[in-house]
């Protein structure tokens, strides 16, 4: 991924998570993330239009509930929050994706966006994500968060 695109991903993600979850994110080095053995969940969605590709956000399962609690202004262990944790990650992804596309392509193009999907990631998948081009690492309230923007040619 081009350096400029990583800057856009960083700026947009930090701004969006602050606005919807009142949480502060800072960019971290991928090397600091090596050896993570927590269980992760990943939300991803694709987009098609002037730009084509996929955006994903991976977070530890505990952090997913923390984000949901912050979005709703409720405790992370509230049953409503725990059942809606994946939903909140999808929403964080959805908003981040919309704003990244506007930042990269301007406000005229119309994009077809897929419905976000959430899957569990095993340790091998997390390590692959860390090694993948286009992955940006963040620390959000001490939790590691991985955001990957893939842009496809044509």
């Amino acid at each position: 991924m081009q350096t400029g695109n990583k800057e856009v991903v960083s700026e947009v993600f930090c701004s969006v998570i602050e606005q919807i979850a009142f949480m502060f994110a800072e960019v971290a080095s991928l090397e600091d993330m090596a050896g993570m053995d927590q269980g992760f969940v990943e939300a991803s969605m694709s987009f098609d239009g002037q730009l084509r590709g996929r955006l994903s956000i991976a977070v530890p399962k505990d952090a997913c509930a923390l984000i949901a609690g912050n979005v709703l202004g409720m405790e992370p262990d509230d049953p409503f929050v725990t059942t809606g944790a994946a939903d909140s990650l999808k929403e964080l992804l959805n908003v981040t994706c919309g704003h990244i596309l506007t930042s990269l392509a301007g406000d005229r193009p119309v994009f077809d966006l897929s419905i976000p999907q959430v899957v569990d990631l095993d340790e091998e998948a997390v390590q692959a994500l860390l090694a993948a081009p286009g992955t940006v690492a963040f620390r959000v309230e001490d939790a590691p968060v991985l955001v990957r923007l893939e842009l496809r040619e044509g």
Partner: protein
Amino acid sequence: MALNILIVDDSQIVRSVIAKSLDLANVAVRTLHQAGNGAEALKILVSHPVDLVFADINMPVMGGVELVERMSRDDHLWSIPIIIVSTEGSATRVEELKGMGVRAYLRKPFKPEAIRAVIDEVVGVPNANG
């Protein structure tokens, strides 16, 4: 006058955030209906009085654009104001939707003040404190 409001979004979290924003914005709500997609919304619309619809664009089964099209062709539903709530930032899309009859567009993320302003623009804000 308190409003009968329908929130249409496939995310329970988003529906809760919009409902909470209406409360924080001090909007008087008589009945708050919720639907997970456009098809569920149409069922509610034909069986309950609704003064205002908040709808997402990108939903499974039936998205917001098809919901707007169906409502605009219906003799009983065409006049119900629709506010689209979406992450999409395309001015082209907003113009298309307004051409189809959508009254306002609220881009996520938004603050309670923004939801109040958009309701004020569309129907006039009923204040919860009377």
